[in-house]
């Protein structure tokens, strides 16, 4: 085998493994990112969609936040104006998560059959005010 062919063989092994890693990675770690109405549509079309890991982006319903600091539990409601879901979360929330108006959150977790969204992660973004410079990640 000529050197060029051997190299092409090695190169195609690399290219194929990169593609395999990406497609497998997406299949096994990718999660839906839905609004509350999209989630409602999914669950009514496909009843097995409960208890599937997903992300939901919505606004916190003002005044709905109930904190139980002794066991770091937070219950609140999120809505996109059409559908509203109760969310329960145990853990520390970022500084930007407050009870004020217009707080956008991304909650990651599962919707239970009881209609309660159990979040494993809460990311908050203050729509009107967050003008960080170049950088950022979850607080």
């Amino acid at each position, binding site marked *: 085998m000529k*050197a*060029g062919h*051997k*190299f092409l063989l*090695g*190169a195609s092994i*690399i*290219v194929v*493994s*990169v593609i395999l*890693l*990406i497609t*497998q*990675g*997406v299949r*096994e*770690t*990718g*999660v*839906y*990112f*839905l609004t509350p109405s*999209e989630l409602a549509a999914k669950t009514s079309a496909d009843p097995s969609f409960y208890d599937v890991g997903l*992300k939901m*982006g919505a606004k916190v319903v003002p005044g709905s936040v109930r904190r139980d*600091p*002794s*066991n*770091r539990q937070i219950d609140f409601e999120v809505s996109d104006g059409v559908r509203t879901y109760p969310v329960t979360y145990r*853990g*520390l929330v*970022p*500084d*930007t998560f*407050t009870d004020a108006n217009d707080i956008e959150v*991304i909650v990651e977790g599962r919707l239970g059959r009881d209609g309660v969204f159990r979040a494993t992660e809460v*990311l*908050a*973004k*203050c729509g009107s*005010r*967050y*003008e*960080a*410079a*170049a*950088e*950022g*990640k*979850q*607080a």
Partner: protein
Amino acid sequence: MTLLGEFCLWLALLLSAWALVLGFSGRWQDRPDLTASVRGAVFATFGALAVAALSLWKGLASHDFNIEYVAAYTSRNLPDGYIISALWAGQKGSLLFWAVVLSLFGALAQLLTPRRYDALMPYVAAVTSAVVAFFVCTMLFAANPFERLAFTPADGRGLNPQLQNPGMMIHPPMLYLGYISITIPFAFAIAALLSRGLDSGWIHAIRKWTLVSWLFLSIGITLGMWWAYVELGWGGYWAWDPVENASLLPWLTMTAFLHSVMIQEKRGMLKRWNLGLILGTFLLSIFGTFITRSGVIASVHSFTQSNVGYFFLGFLVVCGILSFTLLYTRWPTLRAEVQLESVVSREAAFLFNNLLLVGVAFSVLWGTLFPILSELVRGSKITVGPPFFNRVNVPLGLLLLALTGVGPLIAWRKASTSNLRRQFTGPVAAGVITAVGLLAAGVRGLYPVMALSLAGFVAGTIAQEFHRGVRARRRMHGESAPVAFGRLVARNRRRYGGYLVHAGVLIYFVAFSGMAFKREIEATLKPGDSATLKSPFGHTYTFTHVGVSQFEALNRIVSAATVQVAKDGKPQGLMSSEKRQHVDSFRRPTFEPSTEVAIRSNLQEDVYITYAGSIGGTEEAVYRFTINPLVWWVWFGGFVLAFGGLVTMWPGGGAVIPATAQRAPRPRLAEAGALTE
């Protein structure tokens, strides 16, 4: 001042349009009379933009809150240092910062490039001026930093508290300098394509520039990790956020270029690939700016949504189409001078390294864009997060780490069996010993053990190179070991600086694998209560809650929660984490409260304490205690990497090889025992 500033922006637009049109058309028709004024226009553009930047600074410093930008990013009680950094804290100001630095780089390229590349310079001026003109247009038509308000607020809103951090003063400009300086190699690549001067000349002309932008990007990314670690309080330094990924992408392709360009210099291969990498790196830097500024991808923190994004998207598409069409038209002239001789050679190792770096870049790009792509193709948004990026990039990264050790040792063209044995016996032994030692010490986990063993292997290769070089000098010149070491590096800066960069990279890998052993607990503590956490190095930490105190500082109201830390029963003193409510000069709260974490670092592990709040105004506090292993080594690795980069590009000492001398024997290298060159 705003009048002067805005006037200067218009002036800069005219000047850069002048340089753009005359640079292209004059050089195209070979009319020196037309290109004569181009250099002057490039310098004048910088002058105009510098005056514009100074007038914005003047507005910031004089608290002229009638200027929208000043009111949005500063307040009367903001410390002076942050007045300076407010110039790049917001969308509009950072565009101005970008434009002024780019015009400075454009002017420096005209001044510093040796005379022998004169034929390229009108095109280079035209390309840099085109990019400057784009930024100035974006400011004038979408994000004018000199915009005035209809009224004058009594005080400004102040700077985002997370940006009130000394690291934040230098982190964005470093990253911007990296992004911006990529334009210069891009301009040279376009100039070479246009003038058909496609031998390796342009490669030499841009060597320093590619190193400069690689260095700035590296420093900027490391400082960004540091800022995320101390300021964002989630307990890590890298979250695969789209904005972080955007900074990594051009770094990866630039790193690939720095390696593949050596093959073009030595062997006349890979001309198309190298041009593609430079064009791609520039496009990725614009893409990164687009992601950061358009809000098109949900990053938790990014600039507010504005139509600036459309400007960048349009610019990205136009640049992409133009530059790759140009590359396509010159395709036949870019044939390689020689063929690959053996797959066991340095060329092949570098080629595989390039494929892997581009593969990593592609997967990061794919993962970042996946929410948009899936929505376009399948109609529903699917996101991928850190598990995806780790899964794909850890194995690719480990392969890259292995090649970091192989590349510099293996012979050019075709490695003989004796070359392989001579070069690799020691390093491979070092890797195996590391692996055995780790397993014996009870370290488990496939990836961390592999990463650390490969790091042992790479450390072996680097140590062997330095040892052989020093030994050869000592024999030949009778120098003492430190003198020989110093001269070895000073006389072969490019080579040994490169090894230092590799050492920095392997330190990074060691530090990253430490995070696989991170430990964390959350606890709600009354004063006197304590929580215990065992670290991966086997230490037992006890945190005893002392109390919560409230006080006022310069521009904030602080509640500080304090714990007494004990390590293996020995007291280590107090650590305080704070919640800060920033206020303006009328004591009105600005921004949401922010958390200031407490960090204590040593060579083994960091103690990282986050105060999450108190219960109902009592002193009962909620904490998160984290033990982060080996984090100190991330910053140290960044330092070594940057130092190595500086050594590589330091002027003189063989750092630049003139085009004419590149294939001539290099006595200095031979003298230093550079047997593998």
